[in-house]
C-alpha cells in the first residue's frame, strides 16, 4: 500500500486516477447510452381532446306551475339537464381499426369536460385517416366525422383534436 502522504507521487497519481474515474462515470451516464425513443421511420398520431359534450337530454320550457313554485329570482323559463354525454371515438387508419373508446364526462355530476389522450405509433408514409366522434347521446350515429388522405413524414407528430370552435374534429 502506498504512503498516506499527500505529496507522495503514487498517492497523487492514484488520486488523479480515481477523480478521473469519477468524472468518466458522471460524464458517461450524463448523455449515454443513447435512448431510442421511437423508430426513426415511424410517425406519432396523438389523439387529445378536452371538451364539453352535449347535454344528455333536450332543454324544455318550464310549466307555469313549476315557475310559480320557484323563488322569483330563480324563474328561468328554460331548464336543461346538467349531465353531459360521453364522447365516443372511433379511429381507422387505412381501413383498419386503430382505436375505439369512450371519454366519460368528468365531475361528480358528470357535467365537466370529457378528456382523452392516446398516442399511436404508425409507419411514416401515405395514409388514410378516418376519425369519428359522437358527443351527443341523443344521436345514435357519429355526429363528427373527418377522413383525410395524408403523408406522414418520419418523426412527425399529428394531433387529432375536437374543438367545436374550429369546426369539430381537426388534424394538426
Amino acid at each position: 500500500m502506498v504512503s498516506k502522504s499527500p505529496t507522495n507521487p503514487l498517492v497523487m497519481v492514484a488520486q488523479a486516477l480515481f477523480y478521473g474515474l469519477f468524472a468518466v462515470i458522471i460524464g458517461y451516464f450524463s448523455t449515454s447510452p443513447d435512448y431510442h425513443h421511437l423508430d426513426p421511420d415511424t410517425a406519432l398520431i396523438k389523439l387529445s381532446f378536452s371538451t364539453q359534450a352535449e347535454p344528455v337530454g333536450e332543454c324544455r320550457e318550464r310549466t307555469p306551475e313549476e315557475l310559480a313554485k320557484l323563488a322569483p329570482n330563480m324563474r328561468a323559463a328554460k331548464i336543461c339537464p346538467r349531465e353531459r354525454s360521453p364522447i365516443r371515438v372511433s379511429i381507422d387508419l387505412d381501413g383498419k381499426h386503430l382505436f375505439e373508446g369512450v371519454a366519460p364526462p368528468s365531475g361528480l355530476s358528470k357535467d365537466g369536460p370529457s378528456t382523452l389522450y392516446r398516442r399511436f405509433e404508425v409507419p411514416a408514409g401515405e395514409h388514410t385517416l378516418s376519425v369519428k366522434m359522437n358527443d351527443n347521446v341523443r344521436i345514435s350515429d357519429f355526429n363528427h366525422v373527418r377522413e383525410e388522405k395524408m403523408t406522414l413524414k418520419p418523426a412527425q407528430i399529428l394531433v387529432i383534436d375536437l374543438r367545436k370552435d374550429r369546426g369539430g374534429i381537426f388534424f394538426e
Partner: protein
Amino acid sequence: MQRIESFFDEIFGAAANPWRHLGALGFYFLWIALATGIYLFIVLDTGIEEIHTSIEYYTHEQWWLGGIVRSLHRYAADGLVLVMLLHILREFLYGRFHGFRWYSWITGVPTLWLVYASGIGGYWLVWDQLGLFSAIASAEWFDWLPIFNTPATRNFLPGVLTDRFFTLLVFLHIGIPLLLLLALWVHIQRVSQSDVFPARSLALGTLAMLLVLALAKPTVSHGKADLTMFSPVLHIDWYYLFIHPLMYATSPGGLWAIAGALTLLLLILPLLPHPRQGPVAVVDPPNCNGCRRCFVDCPYGAITMLPHPDKPGHELARVHPELCASCGICAGACPSSTPFRSMDKLVTGIDMPQQPVGALRAEMERKIAALRGQVKIAVFGCECAAASSRLESGDTAVLNLMCSGLLPPSFVEYALRGGADGVLVTGCREGSCAYRFGTRWTEERLNGRREPHLRPSVPAERLRLAWADRHEMSHLKATLDDFRQHLQTLGADEKRPRAYTPRRIVQHG
C-alpha cells in the same frame, strides 16, 4: 464496504475519503449547482422563442464562461444524484436506518423526490428536443393520476404554450431547490456538527474534476423543441431522466407503482424488526457539575443543559432518550469519570447503565492485577472495530468498550500507575466510527487537544493508538506485537508513572 473505505483511506486520507463523506459531497454538489444556477438565471431569456437561443448563445459563443458554467451546473447536478444514491446504499449496508437514526432516514426520503423534481425541471428549461420529450413524458406520467381536469399533456400541443410557461418553470426550478435545502436542513437536525462541506482537498479535487469534465465534454443541447416532430434518438441524462424510458418500457401506472413501492419501502425500513438499542445515558445530578463537555461531544445532539436544581449558578446535563445513540461518548467526556476518585463505588456525572465507568474501573483493576509476564499491557478496545478481545493473553488485559469514545483519558494513566507497562487504545478508523466522533474525540483527548485530556506527565512511549476496522485484525495484532517489543526495550522504571493505589488492586486481585 469497510474494505473499500480502508483502501480509499490510503489514497485520500480519512478526512478527504469520498466514501466517508458522501453526504458532504452531496451538499457540495448542491452548492455548486446553486452558485452556477445564479449566473444561468441572469443570462437566461425566458421567452418561448428566445429561451433556446439564449442557452445556445452562452453555450457556444460564450463557451469560456457561460458554457463552462452550464456544464458545471449539469455535472454537479449529476454528481449530486450519484453521491446521494451511494450515500443511501452505504447507510443501508451499515444498517444505519433504525433506532435513534430513524429520523434522519425518514427525512431523507422526501429529499430524493425533491432532487429529481429539481433536476428534471432543469431539462425542460433548455427547451430542446430532450426537454420537450421529458416534459411530455412527465405530463403523461402525471396524467395517469386523476388530478387534472384538463390533461397536462395538452399543454404541449402546438399553439398552447406561452412565455408564461417558462416563467413558471424558472420559478419552480429555483423554488424546488430551495425547498430541497429546507428538507436537507431538516434531514441533518439530529446530527451535531453536520458534515455539509467536504475537506478542502476533497472539495478542490472535486471542483477540478468537474472543471476538467466541463472542458473535455461541454454540455450541449439537442435541437430546438418542435411540437410537430419527435426526436427518435435522445442523449438522455440517465441520472435524472431514466424514469421516462422506464415508463415507456412499462406504463405510467407501472412507474407510479415502482416509485411508490420504493418510497414506501424506504419509509418502512426503520419499522422493520431490528436489534434493540441498549439503554441510554443516565445523568447523576450530584456528580454533574454542568461543565458542558458531554453536551459538546455528543454526536447526535442528545444532551441539553438545564439549570442545576441543587447547585445554584451551575447547569445540569439532560439526556433526550429518543435522540441518544447509547454510545457512551458522553461518559468518556465527563471529568467525573476519572478512576482516581477515591470512592469505592465510582459514580460519574453521566454514565451508561450497560457499561458504567465504575464497573470498568473494577474490571481494569482485576484484569491488570492478574497479568503475568515480562511486560503487562492493557488494551482498551471498541466493540465496533477489530475484535480486540482476541488479543487477550497472559500478559495482555483487554477491556472492550461500546465505543472507544467511552474511554475517559485518565484511565490510561490509571492503568499505567496500577501495574500496566503500556496501554494500547484501539477503535474504528477515523471516519469509520459507528457513532461519528468516537475515534476523533478519543485521539484528541489522548493527544491533549480536547477536554478532558490525558495529563502531559503520562509518557507517550507507553501509550499506543491503533485504529483498525473489523477486517483489520492482523494489523491490530501486528501493532500489539510491535508495541510489546517496544515496551521490552524500555527499562522497568524508565519514564514510568509512579504506582498508585496498589492496595486497591490487591484487594480486587
